[in-house]
């Protein structure tokens, strides 16, 4: 009963607009929040918090890209470039105005990336589909090139800017002090609070008129225009939002690494984010997170497994395992991606939905 909608019991439109309309998801969200913000930080080791930090940052970036690719249907192969725009903007703000609060720098990075994203979204006025996808590839290369060749922006020949670690308020000996973030735990809270805000923002967006406009543009752009939706503006907004997410993602990477470096945001990373969206599930928030987990964890899990299997079966030592594993890693990575696409085109989120649907319609096998 708690997870089933039987009939319409809502009395106000506001109730119907709620994100979760049945009790169980509300409880689930509360439990997840408790686990994420209390249990994991309390129990997690430095290493696992480090991994979770990488997953959290990746989730935010994938979420942003999914708004553009999954919801609005505009394929972008330049997501990582917008991350580097955010990263360098924040780093330059902190360098040129040393007193600036890091939250402001982060928002500044997001906004700069959003502007850049909207600029590179302009071709979407005329260019569609695959042609647009390759145009975003151009955005990746152009942005990389500019950062690479603008010493003031990139911090000289090395193309990198070290930044001060962000601070947070802390009570020490009864007095309020400002502490630097050092441990993975500190960054964990930073990243997951930002991610939670990002998820909430996306959820709200999806239930607003903008969210509907995105899907309308994706599914039938001409019909959407005729019913009064300004397609170009909608696409630009989507580019802007996605790039804002990308920018903040880049800033988070920068804070986490303590350095802005554009070589961390190559085409390879762009493609990885695209992979997260597609494998996780296009247009799905949960899918973005699943995708981020999958892509981040896959090499690690494969590494553990191959090391274990190789050691047990073939007697590989560290040297032998190191030499042979990366190739198997590539093969299995590529193979799994193809396998997933063939077996479940709608991604991990769909698998999850199939799983939960089973309980939603229980005791019947289908609705």
């Amino acid at each position, binding site marked *: 009963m708690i997870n089933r909608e039987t009939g319409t019991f809502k009395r106000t439109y506001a109730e119907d607009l709620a994100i979760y309309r049945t009790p169980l998801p509300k409880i689930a969200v509360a439990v997840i929040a408790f686990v994420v913000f209390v249990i994991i930080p309390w129990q997690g080791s430095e290493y696992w918090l480090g991994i979770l930090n990488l997953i959290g940052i990746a989730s935010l970036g994938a979420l942003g890209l999914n708004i553009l690719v999954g919801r609005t249907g505009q394929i972008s192969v330049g997501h990582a470039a917008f991350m580097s725009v955010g990263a360098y903007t924040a780093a330059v703000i902190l360098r040129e105005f040393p007193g600036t609060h890091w939250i402001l720098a982060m928002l500044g990075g997001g906004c700069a990336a959003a502007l850049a994203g909207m600029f590179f979204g302009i071709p979407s006025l005329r260019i569609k589909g695959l*042609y647009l996808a390759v145009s975003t590839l151009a955005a990746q290369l152009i942005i990389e090139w500019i950062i690479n060749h603008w010493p003031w922006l990139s911090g000289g020949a090395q193309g990198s800017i070290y930044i001060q670690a962000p601070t947070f308020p802390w009570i020490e000996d009864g007095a309020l002090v400002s502490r630097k973030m050092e441990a993975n735990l500190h960054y964990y809270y930073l990243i997951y609070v930002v991610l939670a805000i990002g998820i909430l923002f996306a959820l709200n967006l999806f239930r607003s008129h903008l969210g509907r406009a995105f899907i309308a543009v994706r599914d039938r752009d001409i019909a959407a225009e005729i019913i009064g939706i300004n397609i170009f503006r909608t696409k630009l907004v989507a580019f802007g939002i996605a790039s804002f997410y990308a920018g903040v993602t880049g800033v988070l990477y920068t804070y986490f690494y303590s350095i802005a470096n554009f070589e961390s945001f190559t085409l390879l990373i762009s493609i990885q984010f695209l992979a997260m*969206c597609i494998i996780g599930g296009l247009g799905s928030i949960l899918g973005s997170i699943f995708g981020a987990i999958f892509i981040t964890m896959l090499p690690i899990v494969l590494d553990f497994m191959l090391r274990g299997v190789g050691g047990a079966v073939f007697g590989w030592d560290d040297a032998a395992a190191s030499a042979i594993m990366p190739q198997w890693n590539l093969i299995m990575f*590529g193979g799994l991606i193809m396998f997933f696409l*063939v077996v479940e085109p709608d991604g991990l989120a769909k698998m999850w939905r199939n799983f939960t649907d089973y309980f939603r319609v229980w005791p019947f096998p289908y609705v």
Partner: protein
Amino acid sequence: MYYVELMLNGLLIGSLYSIVALGFVLIYKASEVINFAQGEFVMFAGYVIAFWILSLNFHIVAAALLALVVMVLVGLLVEWSVLRHLIGRPVVAVIMATIGLASFLQGAAQLLFGVETRSVPLPIDDYPVFIGDLLLNRVELVAAVFAGLGFAAVGWFFVKSRYGIALRAIADDQQVSLAMGINVKTFFGIAWAIAGVVALVGGVFWGNASGVDTQLALIGLKVFPVVILGGLDSIIGALVAGLIIGLVESLAAGFLDPLVGGGTKDLTPYVLMILVLMFRPYGLFGEKIIERV
């Protein structure tokens, strides 16, 4: 004189881009698949032919024939095992599958052939030809001839042969072709097999120019501006755009680089591509998709 030389050499290199782009266009034309693994195809072909020549000491012609068979099989296998199942799926899913394929081929090539860099030896003198004071490369002249032959053969195939006409019909409308009794899947297989063969030409000459290892796959990045500029579904577009890009790259390196103090060779094709797209959204020769309400 220097600029004439620069342009001629740019055109020669451009013809080598064209031949890689051709495989890309073929696959797109037949099945509307954007193949992000085209570079890996070229790399794999390079590995295969280098294997026959270097490890087994085959003559270049025998090696090329054997490699041809292998590449046809690889093309068919890829189509049969993966792409066939993705017909009608969203574009991004297909793109992603080919990205997965790229990773797979990288790993497989290393595992099968080793990580070592090797060079494809060709029985062509390295010493350049001089026409007056103009310097041209023998290998590239031969490669350009092969590229031209490749285009002529593919052009003939599409215009004259029964299979080519069927392929064109499929590209036009899959549903109708099915109804007309054309076995669409077979023809997708053919397209992939041809793409494998075309990749071999690229693999031989690029493998000779820069050596065969997994980095050879990066040539794939060069292909995007070419195919988009020419139009994704246009064979003649691939040829013309390849030459244009080769030319523009060369001139950019000659003119622009000293001005901006950085390498602009890889950037200019993309900038040119976007500018052209703003005026011709389907490339120079691409077919305009007409949308109806």
